[in-house]
């Protein structure tokens, strides 16, 4: 059954390219030919190709029919997916700048046709909708207390008159944050560190995963203000006795602990810097790791469904095709297989390969 179905898919795709008489007598639309390419690279009739393949937009043959024979797995394949013209791209045009960025956006790729069709049916093309009038209209001003969101562009930040010096912010930080995150953001009691200098690249896949924190990982500084005002201190979040000024001060101190800068000259935050929303937006523009982000590029893998005598690289650990080559959980010194040994022996910090959840 599998083979039959697969053959049909392959045939219909082949038909799209050749437009042969055989294909016309089969199931495909006679207009289905690759007449044009998006940007000279991608089949412009991708919707048709996907439909003719029974909606299988992640099938290996379909992906190759649309992206070309050279459509590759993983990192190499990703380069194409950063191209907004690529129907498999999650990226929107204005986010591919690589430099000091605005608010990066990602989207549902065009090739995920069923999602777009469903959204069209439920919304974009639903001209028959009549409001039921359940719910009660409410003025935006009545929601001020609830509306604590600050977006990646800084919309929602307090007025620039609100703030405090970094030195004052440090005092608040020590009072409310240091017992879990350390006085200098180094982390404590298993809670997350807020400032580490760690390389995000490891040399061996068995090395502990790098610690990710504000300075070395976060793409936005505004996120920090939104998050700590929303959720911290852990036992009593969004505390009125800290207030916007206090939350800004804490934000400033954490950013200073990460040695972040606010201009091209590399000016760091000083203890007497009055930290307000304007300074925060300056730092936001110079987050060191901001250029290293990309939208979801999965699936990174588009395999064939192999049934018998599958190739060596799909069997076992090391690509030699030997199923008895595998990795086991670590053993205790007496040879007993045990699990989670590094944590139990206090060699590793607790966690799932990173600090905390």
């Amino acid at each position, binding site marked *: 059954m599998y083979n039959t179905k697969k053959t049909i898919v392959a045939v219909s795709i082949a038909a799209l390219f050749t437009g042969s008489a055989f294909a016309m007598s089969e199931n495909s639309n006679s207009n289905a030919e690759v007449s044009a390419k998006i940007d000279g690279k991608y089949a412009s009739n991708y919707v048709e190709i996907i439909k003719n393949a029974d909606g*299988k937009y*992640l*099938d290996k043959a379909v992906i190759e029919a649309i992206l070309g024979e050279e459509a590759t*797995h993983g*990192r190499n394949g990703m380069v194409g997916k950063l191209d907004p013209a690529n129907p498999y791209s999650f990226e929107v045009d204005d986010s591919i700048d690589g430099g000091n960025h605005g*608010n*990066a*956006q*990602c989207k549902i790729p065009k090739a995920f046709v069923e999602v777009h069709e*469903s*959204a069209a049916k439920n*919304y*974009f093309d639903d001209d028959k909708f009549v*409001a039921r009038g*359940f*719910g*009660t209209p*409410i*003025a935006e001003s009545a929601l001020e207390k*609830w509306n604590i*969101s600050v*977006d*990646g562009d800084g919309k929602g930040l307090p007025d620039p008159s609100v703030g405090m010096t970094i030195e004052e912010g440090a005092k608040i930080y020590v009072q409310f944050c240091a017992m879990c995150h350390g006085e200098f953001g180094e982390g404590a009691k298993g809670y997350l560190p807020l400032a580490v200098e760690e390389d*995000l*690249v*490891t040399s061996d*896949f*068995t090395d*502990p*995963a790098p610690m*990710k924190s504000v300075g070395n990982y976060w*793409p936005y500084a505004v996120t920090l203000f*939104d998050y700590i005002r*929303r*959720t911290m201190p*852990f036992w009593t*979040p*969004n505390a009125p006795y800290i207030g916007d000024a206090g939350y800004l001060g804490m934000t400033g101190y954490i950013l200073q602990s990460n040695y972040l800068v606010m201009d091209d000259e590399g000016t760091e935050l000083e203890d007497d810097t009055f930290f307000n929303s304007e300074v925060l937006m300056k730092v936001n523009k110079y987050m060191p*790791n901001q250029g290293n*982000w*990309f939208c979801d590029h*999965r*699936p990174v*893998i*588009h395999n064939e469904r192999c*049934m*018998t*005598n*599958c190739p060596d690289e799909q069997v*076992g650990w090391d690509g030699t095709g030997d*199923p008895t080559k595998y*990795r086991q*959980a670590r053993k205790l010194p007496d040879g007993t297989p045990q*699990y*989670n040994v590094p944590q139990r022996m206090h060699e590793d910090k607790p*966690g*799932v*390969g*990173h600090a*905390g959840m």
Partner: protein
Amino acid sequence: MTDKMEEKVALQTDASRNQGRRAFLKGSAAVAGGVMFTQAAHASGGFDPKKAVAPYTGKAELTDVLQDGAARKSLGFGVRKYPYGMPSPFEKEVQRRTLEWLTPDSMASITMSPIHQLHGIITPNGLHFERFHGGVPTINPDDHRLVIHGLVERPLIFTMDDLKRFPSISRIHFVECPANGALEWKGIQLNSVQWTHGMMSCVEYTGVRLSDLLKEAGIKPEGKWIIPEGADASGMSRSLPVELAMDDCFVAYAQNGEALRREQGYPIRLVVPGCEANMWVKYLRRIMVHDVPLQHREETSKYTELMPDGTAQRFSWYMEANSVITYPSPDFKMQGPGKYYVRGLAWSGRGKVAHVDISTDGGRNWKEAHFTSVVLDKAWTRFEIEWDWDGSEAFLMSRVTDETGYVQPPMPQMRKLEGTNNVYHRTAMVTWRVHAWEDGKSGGLIENVQY
């Protein structure tokens, strides 16, 4: 065997035992008077009933219960002993469990569902996995509101009764933490499918289509994102593009026929079928329609995947197709060579499961399993396949193909492309090593190993 053999019945020789076992393996076994006869085996010749002693006859613990016990000789309890019913006390080991070293406190932690002890495709409400970022609030639904505002024509506030007036939908969907399987990125840590795959559940939700609610408020043309937010201490927020929100999302007030449990967001939660569970905001109280994403901490610092070259992937909403064998799994021990029904779960965040293939030789050859449950969109699907285990070492793997044509990859391939620092979305195949039956005291053990 057992040490409680009774000499007078179990006068066995090796030959008779083996013969008995062979007959047993041929199936249609029947036990009568402590001696096993099988018609099929008899007809196939070479079977001497006089020698046939079933391997387990004479086990006192098997036959003792043939006496009528308390259940038969006295009355049980009456109605409404438990106004809200509870499982039998003999099921007390079936629990969601956590690893206390995983997080520094229990208010920002996770428990795993005992998926090796579940049957079918529905997770009971009391066994649904838990993931909290700020503990579980106990919210009075009379005091709870849902607000839709921002870039809308008409900001609206809904009571819970308002929401229940809308047309309802009921859907069975899996809900999975994207860190499910994260413990296995660097290698094997734990020998149980509850730990390796238990950060997920599958239940029936009932609620209101999000598209109905959003259209009620009327999204302005510049509204491209929705930002749902919870009423709990974590104020959980994520950013969803409007296309995703309008596809098949809904606001659920019920789970498996009753109100949501507090652990799952009582009184209401967002359901984002097929997408990572962090987006399914619990205790939902506010949906802001916005022109740009929030860049919340849970979509930048967390729930993003660090790649081997130091770049990071974000907005990875969909859960890839995935599968796991739940029996036999490392939670069980083989009971001797013979016939087994290998079964497990397969699911895909992008639609229906199309095929599940099983390998017993570490991925060289595959056989297609059949489904023993209904096959639903973005829901657990049960598969099963017959397997004759000859008692030698075996490597069990399952591989799902979903209706989009995506084929679940082996672990070395995923590791090579994605590295091991991602934390999230480890959806490659796992391998259960079945130790050979004649392997000393570890014979028949099932071990979690990694390719």
